[in-house]
């Protein structure tokens, strides 16, 4: 059942013909009509406007110019572009189901995953690429100074010429020019 105000609103919106009223509420308005003079007066006024406006109780029918429509139809058919190919069943499956499944991952799992990533990032267990690049650009001596424990040659350790040649080749600045 609907209120009298709603029934009046329906007539003010949709007019006097019951066929034009929302199907769900039509019966309820029809039931209210015999008992309410104000409602039936409103319907009469609405019907007068409907008739003047040629709003028919046979909705959906309008006269068209068949010949002109036919010409237009031919023009449209002549200008039809190539139809797009239908997506493969696999793509359609992804669009229809896969996409939805991705979106339905529980929020709690997403939050836990984010938290784990943040902890790993802060702990420094994963070395960012920038540091790796920095290492690649270091000279041997810079690398040794920064990343290798302080080393001193043991007095007993013998440095042969081959090692010195190698050192000069790699780090010429560590030895005198006249070496």
């Amino acid at each position: 059942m609907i209120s009298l105000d709603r029934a009046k609103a329906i007539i003010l919106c949709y007019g006097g013909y019951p066929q034009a009223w929302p199907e769900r509420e039509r019966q309820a308005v029809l039931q209210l009509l015999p008992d309410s003079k104000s409602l039936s007066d409103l319907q009469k006024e609405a019907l007068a406007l409907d008739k003047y406006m040629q709003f028919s109780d046979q909705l959906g029918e309008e006269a068209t110019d068949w010949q002109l429509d036919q010409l237009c139809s031919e023009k449209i058919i002549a200008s039809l572009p190539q139809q797009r190919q239908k997506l493969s069943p696999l793509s359609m499956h992804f669009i229809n189901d896969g996409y939805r499944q991705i979106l339905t991952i529980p929020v709690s799992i997403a939050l836990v995953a984010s938290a784990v990533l943040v902890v790993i990032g802060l702990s420094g267990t994963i070395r960012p690429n920038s540091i790796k690049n920095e290492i690649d650009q270091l000279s041997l001596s810079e690398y040794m100074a920064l990343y290798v424990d302080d080393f001193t040659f043991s007095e007993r350790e013998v440095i042969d010429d081959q090692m010195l040649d190698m050192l000069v080749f790699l780090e010429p600045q560590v030895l005198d020019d006249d070496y």
Partner: protein
Amino acid sequence: MNKRQNQKDDKELLKLIAQADKIAFSQLMERHLGAIILFAMRYFPQRSDAEDIAQETFIRLWCKAPVWQDKGASVKAWLYRVAYNQSIDQLRKQRVEYNPDCDENIVDESAFIEKLMDTEDRLAVQKIALAALPERQKTAIALCAIKGFSNGEAAAIMGISLDALESLLARGRRKLKKMYSQIEQQQNDFETGVINDIS
């Protein structure tokens, strides 16, 4: 066109159109083209402009048919939605500061009343009177009172809520009623004047 195809409903035809069936396409156009042109003519007085809208609408249907997904909406409602959007876009292009709700779009209400008084053609009354309304009110009334769409379909075509649709319908009908009352009043005054002159 065979007899079996004549009996197919819009959605069955659409499945054939998805396979590039031009016969099914022209069958569907035969059903809806005229109505879509008339609908577009509510926005554009020139038939050629309305035909352009209809052409764009049906070409879009042709292109979209292979990827159409039946989500309950009728093909007819979809066509009207596309035609409506096309029309509003076109109007926006024509009028830089176009506002579909703005009453200023009405050039002169009294001019419409004068036209309505003059017209002998009962069918023209509807066209002239609706032309005096802002676009969205006109569309809401055309869809519900003329095209016979349900309120839900009309709201979906216009992309608005049911409450918004009913507000547009009520405002539109109020404006039509005001014009109708003025015309009745003027006709009564005219008839009284004639009777007084005779007596």
